[in-house]
């Protein structure tokens, strides 16, 4: 279906798989634990897939080295924007403190985000949900949004997708352009590291 709609962003296989399976579980009264038991293998592959990012990184190493400075600057700005915008918007929306804390690491990959959430004594499964929602929304909106800005540098677009929408954004970037995918993968890995370091600081400063 994704290919049939010419990879239209809304025909995102992840989104449709999730709601279809979710609906199925609800209708048949199957517990999530039962489902997850069977889906363990698929979930487990997230680890090797992260390691596998080394290959496109290696294959494009010259382009990466040439862009190291813009990458580092964009990494810091992007990571901070993701955290701060989440906190500021959530407070403006009057969300409870526990929810705000759970939302702060939503730009990084699920495993790391949940770890950060636990450190903050927030709810890790709410964090996991916000991570997936962020990833899906980011992946859907990135191409139309970037086309609107008229920016054609796929390294920049890919990097932004990796920062804002982690793995799902990276997957989407790979669909669009291989170089974008590489930069997205790097952004995702680096953001996981930087966000773990920045969230505790941001929370102390910004959350009431």
């Amino acid at each position, binding site marked *: 279906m994704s290919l049939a709609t010419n990879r239209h962003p809304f025909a995102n296989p992840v989104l449709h798989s999730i709601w279809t399976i*979710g609906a199925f579980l609800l209708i048949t009264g199957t517990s999530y634990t039962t489902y997850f038991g069977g889906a363990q293998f698929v979930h487990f592959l997230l680890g090797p897939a992260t390691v596998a990012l080394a290959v*496109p*990184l290696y294959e494009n*190493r010259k382009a990466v080295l040439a862009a190291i400075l813009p990458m580092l*600057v964009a990494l810091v700005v992007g990571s901070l924007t993701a955290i701060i915008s989440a906190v500021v918007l959530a407070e403006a929306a009057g969300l409870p403190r526990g929810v705000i804390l759970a939302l702060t690491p939503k730009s990084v990959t699920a495993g790391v985000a949940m770890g950060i959430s636990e450190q903050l004594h927030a709810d890790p499964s709410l964090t996991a949900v916000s991570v997936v929602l962020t990833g899906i929304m980011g992946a859907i909106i990135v191409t139309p949004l970037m086309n609107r800005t008229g920016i054609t540098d796929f390294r920049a677009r890919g990097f*932004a997708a990796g920062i804002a*929408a982690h793995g*799902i954004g990276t997957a989407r970037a790979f669909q669009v352009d291989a170089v974008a995918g590489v930069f997205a993968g790097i952004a995702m890995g680096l953001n996981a590291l930087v966000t773990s370091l920045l969230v505790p600081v941001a929370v102390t400063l910004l959350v009431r």
Partner: protein
Amino acid sequence: MIASLSLILLCQLIGEVIVRGLGLPMPGPVLGLLFLLLLLLARDRFALLATGPLSGGGVENASRVLLANLSLLFVPAGVGVVQKLDLLAEHGVAIIVVLAVSVVVTLLATVATFVLASWLKTRGEDTP
């Protein structure tokens, strides 16, 4: 294929062990990524390493397959949303709006910074 996957898993394992052992603030697989990268770079220098999965595009193919299906790997975690439906019912709309606006702002800030920094860099290189 099996050998390639084993190599990838081995890198991941080493990464996880080191991260846990040293208490590093990063996910194990990310360190595994660095390790695999080092192996690939070392392979350029030391032709001896080009055996098994590191030769004939073995690990490259395995990587391509994993990454081609990357988005689907998030589905099990995503379905976890069914456990949180009551919380979502209460704050759902606010949460989604916050996340949506945040992701757009982050995308724009990141891409603008990258492009700007890149442009400044090339300009700095052009002027003597």
